[in-house]
């Protein structure tokens, strides 16, 4: 598939719109659960943004300021760069031959960013949030890597465009449902949301975000939504046939599928309590990792048989 270069600015606008839409949907669902009016909830994220824009930045006693700010602001950067390899129709910002690995690299970068956000402020609650993230990340990251491997094996290429091309007949979500499920779980993981929000949970007073105020908090929270959106966007070329679909133009199919995955993620995550690291770690290593490896093995056998 021949990809057309695409302006990074358009991609950033798309990512921002997706993240904002996810935040608005989340606020509306929260309002419905709480029994408060839904209409004001639609603009709640904008109001939150406004108050964080005028709020003072905070600091703490003897923070590691550089690392702290880099961690909090870095989530948005990681989300934007990870999305660079996601094709919308035949347009992509960065058509690299190792697109799948590229995406993986930025989700691993999140480890460092979240840990630094917890480490930086010199605060117990934030540091404990960092510990929690590492425990959870150790348990979702390896299954995620194998889940990313399966589509690449089936397509025989690490180029995202080739992975899309290999799904002209059958979407990979049908061929490798386990990998798809593990991938979606990991999206919650690297966006610190839903069942994996323990590192930023209220029981730790906000965990790694406990000391963030003003624009630093805005960047961090926006980064989490942007990562959720990036995860949803990457699921489309990987498992959901990319821009394949009848009638509508390809780019529109990409957008429609991304919005559908994102909405499903936002709605799904409200239905479950937090996973505690202590209880999830055995599941990650004893259930998810072998399942993801078995999926990759099965995919490999099919690929070899076809060749």
């Amino acid at each position, binding site marked *: 598939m021949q990809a057309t270069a695409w302006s990074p600015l358009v991609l950033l606008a798309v990512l921002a719109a997706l993240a904002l839409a996810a935040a608005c949907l989340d606020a509306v*669902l*929260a*309002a419905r*659960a*709480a*029994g*408060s*009016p839904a209409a*004001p*909830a639609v603009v*709640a994220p*904008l*109001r*939150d943004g*406004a*108050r*964080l*824009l*005028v*709020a*003072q*930045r*905070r*600091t*703490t*006693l*003897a923070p590691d300021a550089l690392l702290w700010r880099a961690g909090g602001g870095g989530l948005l950067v990681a989300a934007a760069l990870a999305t660079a390899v996601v094709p919308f129709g035949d347009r992509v910002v960065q058509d690299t031959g190792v697109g799948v690995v590229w995406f993986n690299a930025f989700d691993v970068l999140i480890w460092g960013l979240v840990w630094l956000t917890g480490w930086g402020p*010199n*605060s*117990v*609650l934030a*540091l*404990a949030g960092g*510990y*929690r993230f590492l425990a959870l990340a150790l348990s979702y990251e390896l299954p995620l890597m194998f889940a990313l491997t399966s589509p690449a094996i089936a397509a025989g290429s690490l180029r995202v465009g080739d992975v899309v091309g290999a799904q002209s007949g059958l979407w990979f979500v049908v061929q490798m449902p386990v990998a798809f499920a593990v991938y979606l779980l990991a999206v919650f993981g690297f966006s610190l949301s839903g*069942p994996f*929000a*323990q590192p930023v*949970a*209220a*029981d*730790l*007073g*906000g965990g790694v*975000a*406990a*000391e*963030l*105020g*003003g624009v630093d*908090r805005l960047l961090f929270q926006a980064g989490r939504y942007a990562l959720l959106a990036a995860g949803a966007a990457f699921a489309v070329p990987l498992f959901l046939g990319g821009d394949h679909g009848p009638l509508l133009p390809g780019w529109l199919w990409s957008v429609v599928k991304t919005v559908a995955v994102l909405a499903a993620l936002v709605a799904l995550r*409200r239905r*479950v*309590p*937090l*996973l*505690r*690291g*202590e*209880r999830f770690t055995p599941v990650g290593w004893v259930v998810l990792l072998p399942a993801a490896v078995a999926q990759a093995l099965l995919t490999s056998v099919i690929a070899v048989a076809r060749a």
Partner: protein
Amino acid sequence: MGLTARLLRAGAARPRLLLVAPPGTRPQRLAVERLARQSGWPAADGPADGDVLVLCGPAPPAWQPVLDELWRDMAAPRTRVELTAATEALPALRAARAGLADVARQRREAALASRGEPARRDLPMADVADDRDGLRLDQLHVTLGPVLPAWPHGLRLRVALQGDVLQSADVDVLDGPPPLPGGGAAYDVIPTAAARLDGLARLLTVAGWPDAAAGAARARDAVLAADPSAPAAVARLARRLRRSRLLAAMTAGLGVLAPEAAARYGLTGPVRRAAAAGGDVRARWRQWLVDAEEALAGGEHAAAGDDDPAGLLDVLPGLVTGLDLAAARLVVASLDPDLSALAPHPVPAS
């Protein structure tokens, strides 16, 4: 109107409340929580996240340093309100919103605010101690409370932390306001079903399930308002919680209290009854559900009777030692000691 004023006003329509509820101020807390929920105003996770310090008062002297520290940790825009009766909740929240949108006032606050520096939640220098696996690891001495989200305000848990595991724990309590003349703690009493649902709302907040917590809070408020929809709301909540295998898995086996121990500490309420059914956090929230259902069905006396808070505080350190912070918070939430029912006692100077 300048840009700052516009942004301030936009943000002030959805402020985050940092609620401080010393023992004995449950009516005020419940009134504020109900109004905030109905207006869609979220609760702050901590001072960094809060715009409004809402004090359910009047503040007893022992609370002044706590309030000062929280206030100092809040950055502008910020405002504080105090309510001494539940009926003052609405005017107090209106005043808070107006205060946040007031540009001149917030400019003054910005000049005064210390932006969190120097924060007192700094780490004391770590020392080294043996851990449970026989390793020598850094150990931090930290106080949890007296104000945390979904925490019995006034409770202080002094813990030694290695990583996020509690190696030891000590409990003390910051006193609430003096009892009203002639009333004892009676003004604080609410129907059993509402008390259990209030406990569930906090436990579910700690368990990180905001939708279910909101469901419990709605059911609680319906019971308090004697709304005819209350039994249906409780039934809906009970169905949802009992069906959640994940919630059961996350709360099973934590903070196990044997029936003999519950009897020895003089417990007579839901914690004692739950001890017969496994005695873990899961058994306790299930017992609360049963209590709430029975109380609503007219069996008020079967479900009535709270555990002696002094007994709960005696039990607490043993139950949380060796757990990580998340599990310890679940255990505290599942005991839900009503600190207003404690006999007044002197606060140790610290």
